[in-house]
């Protein structure tokens, strides 16, 4: 528990920073002293962007398995590092083009304990005669013993009646196996892994799922917490607090508010009572981030909620988790922007901010692979590992369900600003919300705010050091302005091998004098010298070849921006949205690959995008 208190006092320091004169060197996260810091190659005080996923299932998840995945966590970690793994479906192997920096397999907790792996070599089992033969130094003896064993076991022979084989006490759970596999693939400085599982609560098929991530494998509870224990998020948080008291370090990340029919960001708790300050605090103690975009759609905003946002109608996946392709009816409570607005309103009413979420993108792939590359999309499930199944439908599936598969997005990515590629650094970045989410592209977004930046800050070589020392990064708070509007620094750069950028927007939400919430979108940078945001960037995609060209758009945007409508008395938040130029949707790549017409019931091109975590302002 001490650790948590320390981290939160640290967060509090960040929020007060704009009032404090710093010596220009102090970095908020370096105030932690409980962590051993041996620096790996690539360490940077001003931080690097590391891309990864923490929401990945394998055949060890019940639905990964029933939907045709044939691989497990070991394969998943190998995939993320660039190896080719078996794909199931039509048999095409899965391989990412550009490997990821970090990865966490988060199989559903609901069925983890159900199937036991057989034996721990440390256990009594290894003392059995046959085990001695199997482990013999003589390879021939070992092989023969092994053959005998297999035969005996499959024919109901003597060995199969050995009671030790059915003794639960010597059985090792799948959960433990997952943790071990996760540790095995951790290579500090090169590739980071986290033990994780998913708590899959969906009361009445309304999605309340959370991925639970552990900083490391120390003091992890022996059994993961599942929705069979409770479907109430409050109970999950209680369990998390208890786990912390027992020495574990963990956080939870909700996703797919779009499939929650208003339940994800409901203004009531699970008992139907209005959200209280205690509820807000418990929620924020346990879940600092929200997964804004993944295969089951993007839940930033819905056109019904923000009719003036011309880019809101993007990869929505408008379904509940019902098997009958049911549509949700409640928009409020389902999308992040609206929740951020509700959050600052509740905060201004003294109820705390239960929705003060940082932002990541993620995958939810159920076939070990995150499937984040639009031109290398292999589907969510194993059965979709066949372009014809993805586009034309899985044989035997009702068409509404096939349409659900077609409306899947490719996986998103979590971008994390961390000093180095270690569990320590990446986990701490998630905790302080110095993260951004993308729809799968590896664009990088920096976002800082301060009342103390000089006007020419970005022309200086050491601007980044100053941005940290005189201000706060994404995910932090600004408070108590004397009337002066904050200055923001925004830097966005395209994915090296990806598409150019169309524009940078700042999305501001605030509570006005009457206590009502408002939102406004500012186009703060436009490519190709445009000055009018209503002018489209154009579209270079050739639907016959599924190719686009970077002859439009910019490779990089870098600017400062001050809020022209700032009111020091109003609670507000600001986050950055960066749009790419249009590129082919995965279904367009598939159609071209199959030599069939591009479907007209799906967008043929999309503008992939990224979102920074917000910076919040409050008068006190």
């Amino acid at each position, binding site marked *: 528990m001490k650790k948590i208190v320390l981290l939160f006092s640290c967060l509090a320091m960040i929020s007060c920073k704009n009032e404090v004169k710093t010596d220009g060197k102090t970095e908020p996260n370096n105030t932690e002293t409980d962590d051993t810091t041996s620096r790996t190659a*690539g360490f940077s005080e001003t931080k690097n962007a590391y891309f990864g996923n923490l929401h990945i299932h394998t*055949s060890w998840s019940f639905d990964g*398995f*029933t939907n045709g995945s044939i691989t497990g966590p*070991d394969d998943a970690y*190998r995939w993320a590092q660039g190896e080719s793994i078996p794909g199931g479906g039509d048999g095409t192997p899965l391989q990412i083009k*550009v*490997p990821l920096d970090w990865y966490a397999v988060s199989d559903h907790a609901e069925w983890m*304990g159900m*199937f*036991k*792996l*057989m*034996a721990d*070599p440390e256990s009594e089992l*290894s003392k059995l005669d046959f*085990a001695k033969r*199997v*482990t013999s*130094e003589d390879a021939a003896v*070992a092989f023969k013993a*092994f*053959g005998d*064993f*297999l*035969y005996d*076991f*499959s*024919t109901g022979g003597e060995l199969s009646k050995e009671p030790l084989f059915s003794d*639960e006490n010597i059985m090792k759970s799948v959960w433990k196996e997952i943790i071990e596999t996760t540790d*095995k*693939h951790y*290579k500090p400085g090169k590739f980071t892994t986290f033990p994780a599982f998913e708590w899959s609560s969906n009361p009445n098929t309304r999605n309340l799922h959370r991925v639970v991530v552990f900083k490391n494998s120390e003091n992890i*509870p*022996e*059994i993961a*917490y599942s929705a069979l*224990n409770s479907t109430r998020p409050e109970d999950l948080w209680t*369990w998390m607090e*208890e786990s912390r008291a*027992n020495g574990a370090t963990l956080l939870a990340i909700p996703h797919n508010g779009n499939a929650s029919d208003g339940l994800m960001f409901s203004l009531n708790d699970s008992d139907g009572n209005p959200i209280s300050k205690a509820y807000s605090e418990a929620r924020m103690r346990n879940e600092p981030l929200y997964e804004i975009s993944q295969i089951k759609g993007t839940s930033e905003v819905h056109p019904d909620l923000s009719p003036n946002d011309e880019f809101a109608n993007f990869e929505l996946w408008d379904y509940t988790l019902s098997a009958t392709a049911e549509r949700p009816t409640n928009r409020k409570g389902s999308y992040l922007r609206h929740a951020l607005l509700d959050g600052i309103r509740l905060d201004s009413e003294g109820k705390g901010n239960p929705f003060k979420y940082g932002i990541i993108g993620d995958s939810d792939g159920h076939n070990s692979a995150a499937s984040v590359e639009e031109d290398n999309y292999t589907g969510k499930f194993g059965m979709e590992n066949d372009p014809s199944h993805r586009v034309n439908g899985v044989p035997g599936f009702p068409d509404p369900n096939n349409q659900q598969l077609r409306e899947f997005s490719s996986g998103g990515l979590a971008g994390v600003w961390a000093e180095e590629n270690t569990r320590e650094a990446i986990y701490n970045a998630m905790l302080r919300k110095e993260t951004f989410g993308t729809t799968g592209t590896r664009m990088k977004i920096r976002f800082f705010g301060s009342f103390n930046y000089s006007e020419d800050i970005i022309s200086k070589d050491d601007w980044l050091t100053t941005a940290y020392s005189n201000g706060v990064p994404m995910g932090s708070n600004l408070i108590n302005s004397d009337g002066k509007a904050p200055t923001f620094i925004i*830097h966005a*750069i*395209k*994915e*090296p*091998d*990806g598409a150019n950028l169309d524009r940078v927007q700042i999305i501001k939400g605030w509570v006005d004098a009457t206590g009502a919430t408002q939102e406004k979108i500012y186009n703060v940078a436009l490519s190709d010298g445009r000055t009018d945001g209503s002018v489209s960037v154009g579209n270079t995609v050739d639907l016959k070849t599924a190719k686009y060209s*970077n002859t439009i758009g*910019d*490779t*990089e945007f870098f600017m400062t921006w001050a809020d022209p409508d700032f009111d020091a008395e109003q609670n507000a938040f600001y986050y950055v949205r960066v749009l790419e130029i249009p590129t082919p949707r995965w279904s367009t790549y598939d159609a071209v690959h199959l030599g069939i017409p591009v479907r007209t019931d799906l967008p043929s091109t999309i503008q992939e995008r990224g979102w920074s975590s917000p910076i919040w302002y409050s008068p006190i």
Partner: protein
Amino acid sequence: MKELLKEPFLHFIVIGITLFVLYGLVNDKTISKNTILINDFDVTNIIARWEMQWKRPPTEKELQNLINLKVKQEIFYQEALKMNLDHNDEIIKRRLAQKMKFLSNDIASLKEPTDEELRKYFKDHSEKYLTPYSYSLYQITFSPDKRENNFNDAVETLKQYPNATFEEMKDQGDKLPFSYFFEEVNANELGLLLGLKFPEALIDQEIDQWIGPIPSGFGHHLVFITKITEPQLPEFDSIKKDIGNDYEYDHQKEIDSLLFSLLKKKYVIEFDIKSEDFDPKFVEYLQEEMNK
């Protein structure tokens, strides 16, 4: 919901259950009762699992609930077996097959590999462990955002400053967030930062002079390489852990196919395909292959 009420399958189920319950009521005395035994082992187990989760024993009511859940599951399971609901259930088949795979995985890890086995594996798969090319280099970037023709500008700059010092060259390009000097950076890292074209174009380049234009995702670059380190095979001891993991991974796959081939010997696989869509020769071929 309306649609659901029209569903014939639902009618079938509802009628079925009603009949079943009625039959049960009428025949209550004639049906011999089955026994579900909950013994010390079961209860201890239920409690132990709860305690692992909650770090406290269950209350009496909680325990009663847990036992009730177990009984319900057991009864449904037993009745489902009697109704042969497990037969030809693809999911049950897959799950049991997967359990066999777990079994073979555990057998594979029963015996720790010897150093000798690991060294042999290392030798046989050495290409997998080669480090990537590594470079120390200076670079300047010519960005399409700021120039009409960034390629030509790079060419012109190289012509104009063929022997420029590092200080002179430093400000010739455009400001982008990439270092002017990279020390011992490997090809993979360069690929992640600048795009895969960049390290590819560095292969076989001359060192100690300005070269280019080298393409990247951000335009073109002029590059001065001061050092190239060829791919190297790390010392066995330094990567023994990784080799062990890879060995185990491959070994599990071997054991899995061994298990399959051993068990297959107990079965004859027959094909009874009459469809004219299939060439009988192909069926014959399958028959032969599958029984090898």
